[in-house]
């Protein structure tokens, strides 16, 4: 490890938690102010990509479970599709959200328990998984290229 690497490593390590927190905040506050699942997912993914860039993808993979990124994307898409098509079972059109308009929403702190929030979470997971997954694929491909 060259000395010039120490500072970026420390900073990257140190920033991981705040970035994650910002992502969660952007998601939770999404319905009342700036931010939504897409933005939050991208921010969180950029936090991971930062580790990739600084530590190299091999070490980043050792530190974090990034190998599961495609799975996260698949789970997100599955959740989104499930929320979209579940209303069909009750005879409602696709993507009918609950609770209906004008009705009270149960709150858990500032988090509102509504299916639209769950849908947003699905978007979060998918975007996060796809961005991390693509960057990881590119990193591995670049390494293979170097080997040849």
């Amino acid at each position: 490890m060259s000395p010039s690497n120490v500072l970026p490593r420390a900073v990257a390590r140190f920033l991981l938690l705040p970035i994650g927190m910002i992502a969660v905040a952007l998601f939770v506050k999404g319905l009342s102010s700036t931010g939504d699942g897409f933005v939050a997912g991208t921010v969180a993914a950029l936090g991971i990509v930062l580790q990739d860039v600084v530590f190299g993808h091999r070490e980043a993979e050792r530190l974090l479970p990034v190998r599961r990124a495609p799975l996260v994307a698949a789970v997100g898409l599955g959740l989104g599709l499930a929320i979209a098509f579940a209303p069909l079972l009750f005879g409602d059109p696709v993507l009918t959200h609950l609770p209906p308009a004008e009705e009270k929403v149960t709150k858990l702190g500032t988090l509102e328990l509504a299916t639209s929030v769950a849908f947003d979470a699905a978007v979060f997971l998918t975007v996060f998984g796809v961005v991390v997954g693509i960057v990881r694929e590119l990193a591995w491909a670049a390494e293979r290229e170097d080997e040849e």
Partner: protein
Amino acid sequence: MEPQTRTEPDERAPFVVSDSAARRRDGAGAEAGPLGPFPPAAALAATLAALAFAAILYAWLRGGGSIDLPWAPTLGLRLHFRLDALGALYALLATGIGAAVFLYSGRYLRLHLASDGRPARDERSFYAFMLLFAVSMVGLATAQDLLLLFVFWDLTAIASYFLIGFDRHETASWSGALMALLVTGITAVALLVGSVILFVAHGTFSLPEIIAHARPGTTLTVAAALIAVAGLAKSAQVPFHFWLPNAMVAPTPVSAYLHSAAMVAAGVLLIGRTYPLLAQSQLVLDGMLVVGLASMLTGGLIALTRERLKQVLAYSTVAQYGYMVALYGLGGAAGAVGGAFFVAAHALAKSALFMVSGAVTQASDGEERLGRLGGRWRTMPIVAVAGALAAAALAGLPLTVGFFKDELLFKAALKRGPLVTALVAAGPVLTLAYIGRFWGRIFLGRPRQAPTGPGSPPATLVAPIAVLALLSLAFGLWIAPLESLAGAVGSVSLAGKPAGISLAYYLDARATNLIALGVYALGGLLLATYRHWLPVAQGFARVALRFGPERAYVSSLRQANRLSSALHRVEVRDLRRRVAWVLVPCGVLVAAGLLATPTVGQYAIGKLGVGDAPLAILLALAAAAALAATVPRSQLVLVLVLSASGYSLAAVFALFGAPDVALVAVLVETLFALLFVAVFSLLPDDVLRREQSLSVSHSRRWRDPLVGVVSGFFALAVVWGTLSSPVPSDRRVAERLIDLAPAAHGKDVVTAILSDFRALDTLAEVTVLVIALAGVAGALTRRRSR
């Protein structure tokens, strides 16, 4: 290429083993030999199919039922299924014959894979696609909505592509699969167009509603003809029949299922389902009669001359579906009931015959030419008897279910006069001759070549054949169940009118009996004098194959390839040229639009105050960065300059009070810069350096700026014009969305739009993202393996 292999598509015999394959087979056969445990995947698939069969039968006996889910009511889209008689018949065929074929596949596929030196786990995709096919068939049989019908229609085509091309290492295999996909897929567009015509005319895709409202006329005739074309191509009718013989490269269980009872039956299913529409146009009916008769005679004549077992059966299928199409074309109660009855009778017999061919080939170490078989009744007596029953059913002999299918055919034809009757009767004559030759050459006489291979097939290959053959016999003796089902199907096709057809053996000199006797006599005569007229049939087959529609298919495929590579040369090879091909036509179109509309007073220049200074500075920065992007030669610098422009624009959004947009813009710019850098790191350094040091060619020095200026100017003209006179309705839409946001439990309108108002769009975009991930992974992995 010698003519024999040319006229008879080189079908890959599943068990023809070359020396190296034989050696592999010894190794692989030891663990996957006939004595291993029965494959669990096959057992599971067969059980599932049998359970589905029982469930459908139970539901049908309880009076059917329907499911109607309006999944997007504002667009008029419904998931509407109904288990009526027509649906029940085809769903029972798909699941019942499916169960028999799955049972048969268990052993067969293991042997097939072992002879190719492939691992046994390859069978998983086979069962997955077979099940997908069975599910699509049931969906197709019960769908009551034209769009839904179209979706299942194409699903069957896709599943069949993977099943026919199961031996993916063989060229013939995937070219046969592609042919089936293209022929049935392209003609499926005719079904879609016909459906859209009906939708425009009646405002709904729902079949029962369209049938209730449709009146004869040119619109209906065109739509009906288009739908009929799709059905005829799927049922392998002249001139689309050539895909079926080429699809015989599929493993035998696939043929026993798809090419006897399912894929080809789908075409007749569509005709039966839309028959109340088709029957309103005499033109369409006559067309179907002609096509059916042509297929009947062409298929029958060529089947007489084929050497390979599955080729005989393929052309026989073309001919037999010709009967059904002709029956529907003849029309009336006898036609509608006959078409349905025929499907069931034929499916039982033909499926069994395909499985006979597979069992014989398997037991004879890959031999599949009629000329080299013979005398096989000694080694496989049960298969011989079951095969005889199935062949008798196909030929329409009494005491089998086939007798009634021919009786209905003659009954329908007699109403159209002697000429049609004579032509129609020629079909069964040919059938008797070619199926008699097929059976006799396999099982009778002396073995023309000393039998090699195991000699007798395993019991799980024989049992399904025996069951189907016995059913052919049982329904011939006890016709009532099939008669009532076919009668009910006929009344669906006749839009609810009862069909009133009764079937029984009458021992008197009625016309249909006399025709049947004549057919047996002539067919027997043909069979006895086989050698004398064979050259005639061979001559016909040679001409038909050489100048047939397959030629047109091949040449049009070649032309399409040529066009595609020409386009590729022009458009895709050079990225700059490709961008120019998009931008310049856009600019020209906009210019045409501008010239055609009045522009006076459309362009306003706003006022710039002191408070706007930050905005102006940011915009100037963005513009400067855009201009600067034309200068650098290094790719990395270029990326940074471009993101500078993007970040400046993001700041502009922030100033305009659109924090959401600004946030997204910043994140996307960051991501793109990172991705660009990552992609550049994939390219070899010397390529990047070479690109940097290339001097700009003379033509590009003028062309590129010109393209940029032209497209930029017209983009400016449009944006400026739009901003000068904002459309009031846009503002109203925005205000409405803001008003509605609280109702969606959101104070932030952007999130409400994303996750509620336009959630379907979001879902589609998210799906595209996941597909992109899969694409990136696939593209990069392929690079590695190369």
